[in-house]
């Protein structure tokens, strides 16, 4: 054996010892961490992670009736007269017809409920809204109310541009919403918004490739360690890539797929996975984080069971190999099923046959768990009220604001407005007839919905996007290119995060 091969083997064995060590340390911490998270979910929301299964979600749908008008009337009288300005990211040309129809229906229904409230709204493009809101707020021309994707509001809260506002202001309770969602609208222990909708991802796999590799086609990997093993077995037996890793630099897709792994092993960036995070303790270099990074290293470097192009791939680059039957597993949204159907429709000849088979064999399951927990990034949107000092005209019609917030965040419209790709922010929405209808229409929705109790939002600090989109992918790439060892990459990331938090 050559000297370089000896070195490689030694490095692999050293890394394997390290990996086992990290996993053991992570496992010791896991029991305390896992039980804490579970207790929090049980006590606060009445949602038990263990029972919030796809079958349970199906069983509770359609069990309550909701009278939106009556519920809104308790908050703001239906004859209230007022004016409201409102910005949101709504449907665009590329959106599904049902999204566009529901948007129209929403405004019609609001007008019928509050005929004397005049709403001037702007439906903005996702890529433009944040900059437009920043500019407007700086120029004292902000709307009274805005619906922001999760965590966009942090910088506005930090600058004192948002008014304290929460579920209590519209006759609801914090317990009506997911803990992860409430964390995302809390800044320095004050509430600055109400969640409208939340979504998470799930594990998607191709049952036919599983069968080809000698795995049970209907059973996904239960743990991240299992996923590493499955990925290798698929590569060894079929020659196809196992897991669609995403490790591109400066890309939001990367932390969305790596953070669930990091949290599952008991790691994290800060203490965002804790029930009451303070965002001061750095966890990127703890044993759990290193174990998670080691698992990714094992898949990419040791086993070569994931796409070589993972370092430059976003999730978009996983979709074509998946529909071509060349990729076995990936993590993504419920809308991925609709994308695959769309791609299969556009395929021709032999490609169409393959694509149709992939769609028929597509399965959704829970994201694997780790020694500490099962986790997923908590996505969604929330309503926020701008402070009158930055609002156009210098005045906020708080009655009109509460009316729209009560209407939108109630069970009916938080369900309807999340129809295609999300879930109601209001937990009561899961019990409505509209949720039942959605579950009947949208395949796999019950699976991604069942991931919600495990949702963890990114740290609610202004530095979050720098840490998540630059430092975390950088750490991953440093380890996977072997520019640094796993341990060094984690320590390097910890130093960078420390510098960021200290304003360096």
């Amino acid at each position: 054996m050559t000297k370089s091969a000896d070195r490689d083997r030694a490095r692999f064995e050293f890394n394997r010892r390290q990996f086992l060590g990290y996993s053991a340390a992570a496992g010791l911490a896991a029991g305390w961490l896992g039980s804490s998270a579970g207790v929090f979910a049980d006590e606060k929301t009445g949602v038990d992670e263990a029972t919030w299964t796809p079958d349970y979600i199906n069983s509770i749908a359609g069990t309550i009736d909701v009278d939106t008008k009556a519920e809104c009337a308790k908050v703001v009288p239906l004859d209230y007269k007022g004016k409201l300005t409102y910005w949101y990211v709504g449907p665009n040309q590329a959106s599904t017809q049902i999204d566009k129809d529901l948007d129209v229906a929403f405004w019609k229904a609001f007008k019928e409920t509050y005929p004397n409230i005049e709403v001037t709204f702007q439906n903005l493009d996702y890529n433009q809204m944040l900059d437009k809101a920043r500019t407007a707020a700086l120029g004292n021309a902000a709307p009274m109310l805005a619906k922001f994707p999760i965590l966009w509001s942090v910088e506005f809260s930090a600058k004192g541009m948002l008014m304290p506002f929460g579920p209590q202001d519209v006759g609801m309770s914090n317990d009506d919403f997911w803990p992860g969602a409430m964390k995302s609208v809390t800044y320095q222990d004050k509430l600055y918004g109400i969640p409208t909708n939340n979504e998470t991802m799930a594990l998607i796999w191709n049952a036919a490739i599983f069968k080809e590799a000698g795995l049970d086609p209907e059973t996904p990997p239960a743990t991240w360690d299992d996923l590493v093993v499955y990925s290798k077995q698929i590569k060894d037996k079929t020659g196809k890539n196992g897991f669609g890793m995403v490790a591109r630099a400066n890309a939001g897709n990367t932390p969305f797929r790596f953070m669930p792994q990091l949290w599952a092993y008991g790691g994290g960036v800060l203490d965002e996975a804790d029930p009451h995070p303070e965002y001061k303790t750095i966890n990127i270099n703890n044993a759990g984080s290193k174990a998670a990074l080691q698992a990714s290293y094992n898949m990419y470097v040791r086993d070569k069971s994931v796409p070589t192009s993972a370092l430059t791939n976003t999730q978009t680059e996983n979709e074509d190999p998946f529909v071509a039957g060349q990729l076995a597993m990936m993590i993504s949204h419920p809308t991925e099923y609709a994308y695959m159907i769309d791609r299969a429709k556009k395929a021709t000849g032999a490609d169409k046959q393959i694509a149709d088979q992939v769609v028929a064999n597509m399965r959704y399951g829970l994201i694997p768990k780790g020694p500490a927990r099962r986790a997923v990034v908590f996505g969604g949107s929330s309503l926020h009220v701008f402070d009158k000092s930055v609002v156009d005209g210098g005045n906020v019609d708080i009655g009109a604001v509460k009316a729209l917030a009560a209407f939108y965040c109630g069970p009916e419209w938080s369900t309807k407005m999340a129809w295609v790709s999300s879930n109601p922010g209001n937990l009561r929405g899961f019990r409505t007839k509209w949720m039942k209808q959605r579950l009947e229409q949208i395949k796999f929705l019950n699976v991604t919905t069942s991931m919600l109790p495990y949702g963890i939002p990114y740290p609610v600090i202004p530095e979050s996007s720098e840490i998540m989109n630059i430092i975390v992918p950088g750490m991953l790439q440093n380890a996977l290119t072997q520019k640094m060892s796993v341990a060094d990459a984690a320590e390097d990331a910890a130093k960078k995060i420390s510098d960021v938090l200290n304003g360096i």
Partner: protein
Amino acid sequence: MAIATTQTAVSGLERRPPRRPSLFRRIKEHWADYLYILPAIGVMVLVIGYPVYYTIYLSFFKTPPSLSMDQKTFTGLDNYALILTSSSFRDTTINTAIWTFFSTLFAFVLGLGAALALNREFVGRGLIRGLLLIPYVISAVAASYVWRWLYHSDFGVIGAIAVALHLSDHPINFLDNVHTVLPSLIVVNIWKEFSFAMIMMLAGLQTVPDQLHRAAMVDGAGPWDRFWHITMPHLKGVTLVTVLLMLVANLNGFTIPWIMTGGGPAGASDIWITQVYQLAFGRIRFGPASAYSVILFIVMMVLGYFYVRALGGREEREE
């Protein structure tokens, strides 16, 4: 001697160039002309002048990640020190130098070669010229996405052809390898840019007198001698201008590295301009990003100075 002195004095007087009026005097004498260009100057001050001023101003401040600009603090030259002493600056500077130098060199050489080939009449010349212009007119974003798939480490066309021709037993890893990523991006940049050099040099070749070539042929000069001693001297001016423009364009060349690799893997394709973008819009650090921009601006101003001198030199020669 007196006559000689007088003659010398007269000829000295004749030889001294007339004193150029001052800028203020020129504006005063031609005030109406300047009024015509005042709106354009106003727009330039607004969209170029003010952003340049504000960037330089911001480079001396530390800005908070929450973008509360009223909370920015004056830090003097700290941002410059931070950048120049950072561990990534050395690597990024080396990447930038390699990217700029080799992109410019090979795009120029390829463009010159194409221009020389197209400078003679042959059947299909117009069609070939049109085809060779395609890379230049295609949008850089579209080209980057297409090349990303051509280079794809798992399913790329280039890798598949290499496997089919038994040049490799597995797809080639172009973009996901820290050693091959920058040369791969440079190839894309050369492909995109050489047409510009081709057009510039083709225009320059029209100024080379044909009778010089014929005379040299009569004297027994071979193709290389004619090229080196006749063609290239005539192309000096346009060569300098073309190379300078390409250097500036490549220093600013953001699209290809950003879209194809995002500066990765592990910073192996990070250049100054992608670092500036990442600092400003990824890390929300407008102070250091502005300082980085000022450093880049200074380098380009130096290149711009030589460009203006080269242009001025051409105009004097033509006069």
